[in-house]
């Protein structure tokens, strides 16, 4: 982790405490460049290119053809000068013939240029989308423990930035073939035209190469610094925008402006430095070109004068010289592109190689709606880290149609138990049975249809209210969605939204209150119409009015279903058929409210504290 923040020098440096103010945030930087060539990465990427290998071949062929036509044009000019326009205008036929050849060559050039760019461009785009799809679909299968510990932002930068740099790499790779061929071709043609003059002119080439190699390291450092300064500055701007209410509320605008000024100054200086580095190459290249041209004129000119070579040869040389710095420039750029691509490719393969822990067994059978709707834990032991089990030898049974409340202090393993029912993770010992079958023996998709789940934090997608409630239950009609919304008491507020059910929700449902989002997630579970409902009750405080609606909706949701509820509210707990009390991963009590009260154990103790919610009870009172 690096700190990229501006610190303004303390203006009151008189022994007062140091200033604790920064703008712009701490950023985690990733390696931008890898090795130039990483065989493993290349072979993984090749898998994605393989389906397009004929197109790659076609593109390379087109690039070569294109390069050949580029190379031949100065030669044609040379030929025309030396043979088609002898003073005295004797044979117009030769010139016409040469022009005809020229016309054919430029026609080929046109076709080759078209094919090369179109095929390469499309192929690179396709590969980009293929890699992204493969990664995305892989992420749908990898274990949730991987997803839990990986930031979404990090994955997104894999799916966007890293894939993009692979695309850039593919596209430029094909074109690099052309650059190499062009360079080789120019050298070869020059030597062929006149090897002595050729050698003489080519002496500037190694000089340029050395200068370029010396330059690129420092230049790249300057470019990176500018890029970095830019993103730090932009980061600070984004922070100011997102946190503007806090900034104004605490009157920090003045100081922030000063701090931001430092960043902007730094950014300015970094960009000027980068610009100087980029521009310094211009006179160097022009000087070398000048040397080469002067050599051709002096030496080549003398050779023409002494009639050792034709004047057309000299003209051709002058044309080639103007071109031969281009491929060198592109090729040195390609070096950075490759390094960047290797680093990105390495990160991509890391994602693609994340193991899939929870998978359908070969021959897994689907659960059918006819299957029983019971849930059973048989001696289950489970921990995200097997060394530290979260659940220890837990056994219980929820009969079809029964509602069971799981209660217990924070960290007792309630949420893990719920995740196991859906087979988000596999148990280390024992078994979880749904509908009388081990969850590992049935297909995950059918398990998903058999169980509806309501998470503690309601999660909404961008889209209309209708789409959110229906979610993946495609077959539910609009009326079914409406009915579900009515059943959970969400219909009224939905109707009051600007476009009713067609209102598009903001990101994460930002235009709804927490309670309303909760109700929508209930409706979503109701539409899914599964036999078993697993529900993690929200702990956050919702205003009493919405709370009331939610309590009613919950009752409606549990009607005719098997319910396994992680309950926080006393009202919910009391409505359950049975209560299971967990503590530190072990089941310590089980029974109805009355039975547990008689037993006078942990439950009775918690209940008698008379809090509206178990979660409100201070930890020291629960004795955990």
């Amino acid at each position, binding site marked *: 982790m690096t700190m990229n923040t501006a610190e303004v020098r303390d203006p009151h440096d008189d022994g007062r405490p140091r200033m604790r103010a920064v703008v712009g945030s701490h950023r985690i930087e990733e390696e931008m460049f890898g090795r130039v060539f990483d065989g493993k990465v290349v072979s993984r990427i090749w898998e994605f290119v393989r389906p397009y290998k004929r197109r790659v071949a076609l593109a390379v062929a087109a690039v070569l053809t294109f390069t050949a036509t580029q190379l031949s044009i100065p030669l044609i000019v040379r030929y025309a000068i030396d043979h088609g326009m002898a003073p005295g205008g004797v044979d117009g036929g030769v010139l016409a013939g040469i022009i005809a050849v020229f016309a054919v060559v430029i026609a080929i050039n046109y076709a080759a240029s078209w094919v090369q760019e179109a095929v390469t461009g499309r192929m690179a785009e396709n590969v980009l989308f293929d890699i992204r799809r493969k990664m995305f679909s892989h992420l749908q299968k990898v274990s*949730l423990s991987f997803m839990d510990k990986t930031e979404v932002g990090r994955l997104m930068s894999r799916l966007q930035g890293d894939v993009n740099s692979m695309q*850039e790499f593919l596209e430029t790779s094909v*074109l690099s073939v052309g650059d190499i061929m062009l360079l080789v071709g120019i050298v070869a043609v020059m030597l062929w035209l006149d090897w002595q003059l050729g050698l003489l002119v080519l002496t500037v080439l190694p000089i340029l190469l050395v200068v370029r190699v010396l330059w690129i390291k420092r230049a790249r450092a300057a470019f990176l610094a500018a890029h970095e300064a830019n993103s730090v500055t932009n980061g600070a701007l984004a922070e100011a925008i997102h946190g503007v209410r806090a900034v104004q509320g605490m009157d920090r605008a003045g100081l922030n402006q000063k701090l931001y000024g430092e960043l902007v100054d730094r950014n300015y200086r970094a960009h000027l430095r980068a610009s100087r580095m980029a521009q310094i190459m211009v006179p160097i290249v022009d000087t070398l070109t000048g040397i080469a041209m002067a050599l051709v004129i002096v030496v080549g000119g003398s050779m023409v004068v002494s009639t050792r070579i034709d004047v057309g040869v000299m003209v051709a040389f002058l044309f080639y010289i103007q071109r031969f710095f281009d491929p060198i420039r592109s090729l040195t750029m390609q070096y950075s592109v490759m390094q960047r691509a290797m680093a990105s490719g390495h990160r991509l393969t890391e994602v693609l190689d994340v193991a899939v822990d929870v998978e359908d067994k070969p021959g897994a059978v689907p659960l059918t709606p006819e299957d029983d709707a019971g849930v059973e834990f048989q001696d289950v032991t489970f921990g995200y880290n097997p060394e530290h089990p979260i659940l220890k030898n837990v056994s219980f049974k929820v009969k079809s149609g029964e509602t069971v409340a799981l209660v217990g202090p924070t960290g007792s393993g309630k949420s893990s138990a719920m995740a196991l029912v859906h087979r988000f993770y596999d148990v280390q010992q024992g078994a979880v049975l749904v509908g009388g079958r081990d969850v590992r023996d049935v297909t995950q998709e059918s398990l998903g249809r058999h169980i509806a789940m309501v998470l503690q934090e309601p999660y909404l997608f961008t889209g209309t209210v209708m789409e959110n409630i229906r979610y993946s239950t495609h077959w539910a009609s609009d009326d079914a969605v409406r009915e579900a919304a009515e059943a959970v008491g969400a219909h009224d507020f939905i109707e009051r939204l600007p476009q009713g059910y067609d209102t598009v929700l903001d990101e994460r449902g930002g235009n709804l209150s927490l309670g309303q989002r909760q109700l929508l997630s209930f409706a979503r579970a109701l539409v899914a119409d599964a036999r078993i409902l697993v529900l993690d009750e929200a702990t956050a405080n919702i205003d009493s009015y919405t709370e009331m609606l939610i309590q009613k909706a919950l009752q409606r949701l549990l009607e005719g279903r098997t319910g396994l509820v992680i309950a926080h509210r006393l009202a919910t707990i009391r409505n359950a058929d049975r209560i299971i009390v967990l503590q530190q991963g072990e089941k310590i009590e089980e029974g109805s409210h009355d039975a547990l009260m008689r037993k006078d154990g942990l439950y009775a103790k918690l209940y008698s504290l008379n809090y509206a919610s178990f979660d409100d009870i201070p930890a020291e009172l629960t004795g955990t």
Partner: protein
Amino acid sequence: MRAARPNRGCLVRALQDGTFPMTQTTDVTAGEAGDPSQRLFRRTAGTDPGQGFSALVRITRMTLGYPGRVAVALVSTLFAVAAQLSIPVLFGRAVDETLILAGDDAAGRASLVAIALTLFAVSVARGLFTMAQNYTAESVGHALAHDLRLAVYDKIQRLPFSFHDRTHSGDLITVGMLDLEGVRMYFSTALVRTVLLTLLIGIGAWMLITTDPLLGLLALSFVPFAAWRSSAMQLTLRRTWLVLQERLAILSRVMEENLAGIRVVRAFASSRHELGKFDAASAEALALSHDRVSIRVKNTSAMTLAFFAAMGLVLWVGGRQVAAGEITVGTLATFLTFMTILQMPVRQLGLMVNAYARASTCGARLFALLDMPVEVDDKPGARDLEVTEGTLRLDNVSFAYAGSDGRTAVTDVSLTARRGETIGIVGPPGSGKTTLMHLIPRYYDATSGSISIDGQDIRDVTLSSLRHAVAVVQQDSFLFTTTIENNIAYGDPYARDRRIRGVSESAQLHDYVLGLPRGYETVVGERGVSLSGGQRQRLSIARTLMLEPAVLIFDDSTAAIDAGTESRIRSALRGYAADRVTLIVAHRLNSLMHADRILFLEEGRVVEQGTHEELLALGGRYKALHDLQMRPEGDVLDEMEEAAT
């Protein structure tokens, strides 16, 4: 020779299209709720051409603020063009020289050396002047960007809440990043380039045509076509680029929401549904990407062909003239070299056109932001608030949000609170509690009535002093991505450690912080350790306490804190409450029943008022709410429901 490929790799393409790959916007522009015309700074909305033009004028004027560098850039451009144009002429002369002198070695060598040395000098001069031109032009852009960044930042920090309510933060970021970039590039890619191309093409054409009108016209024949195709291509690419960004944003959103909501996706076993969404979004973006490749390929190939065709014509016609002895081989060589030199700039005309288009739309958006009036601002000559007695007074305060057709969210609220008093505010959702609280620090200005502290109307004092005197613990507190201590000391960066620890203890945060591996130096926020809702609220309370305000407002800021911790915070704050007015908005009555007075708000009006006991005795709405919360039993639920309907 080789036709340049102006579109190499996506980096270059992105630069030409008007952005960098690093700064792709991920904000969601499609499908926004509410009236789309309400949204400022939409990327896809067209800009009025008049506005675009005045934006260009304004940017041009601003660049003149750096006259030295502008002059150097323009003069260098002139010299660079002169050097550039003399190269073909020198070429031609060298060729002719060799032919005239054929056989005469000694004399030939001397004149050739002279030409070669001139050519070398000209070439070096071209390099140096091009460097000077590019560097100074870019530096003008960077200097402009430097100043604009500061102006944008300042503006954003000063624009009131009402502005930020109706502006999408993603759009604002885009204005500050991409639009600013478009304006920055204006001088080097539009203005200087226009001068460069005008001189190069103009003088070049004049030289060619005066040398030989027919051959000159033939050599230039590709220019109009290439200029037209290049401009048309760049404009189409720019337009489709904006659409592509939108499609990519949708794709990103599908992926991002899927990954962030992966538990829901798994819970509903809906990965197939999600892949369907992904494929649909992906196909849309890919199709457009392919279209863009086609647009590019079609045009660049056509431009190359036009160029070569013109070259073929020059070679043919010129060749015949050489054969007829009308012109020399050197003149022909001059023409051909000229063409190769003109080729690149002509093909890049589109970039210049694009730069104008980009600067005018970007500039229009940027200036719209910079010209936005700051509605809540210091009056001219406003003085600092002087807190003496510490009395807060609200006098018939009403407030209506902009665009609510005058429907008031707060109506005729009056209140006087003295130092040491605690006032509770309660009421159903949407009853105006938060709105009322936001009027006191002038997050919004009251529509009518007045608010004063110690007799000074809050509109007559400086905002800075007011906001030090009135501090709000927000419902949803924003944490800055920095250390916990920096966050706590946000409003008082020079605070001593002791005070930071003190407020942190009062907010019941200290023990938690000590448990973190890096204690108070732990980085929190968006890219740091994520805190739970309750921890965030505690941190928010701590940083507000640092301000030691005369009026301390808790805006439903303990909802995510458990009751036990909240009661400890309450007792810790008892000492603080003695020195100031405390206002508490809460849903949970436990949070405010100790208040000296409680206001019950309904539809923006105070409908009940008194102490907890008085309100219970009154047997009205407050009592009903109290019963609901204290006895969460089914029978009360039904009772409440009847009462509510």
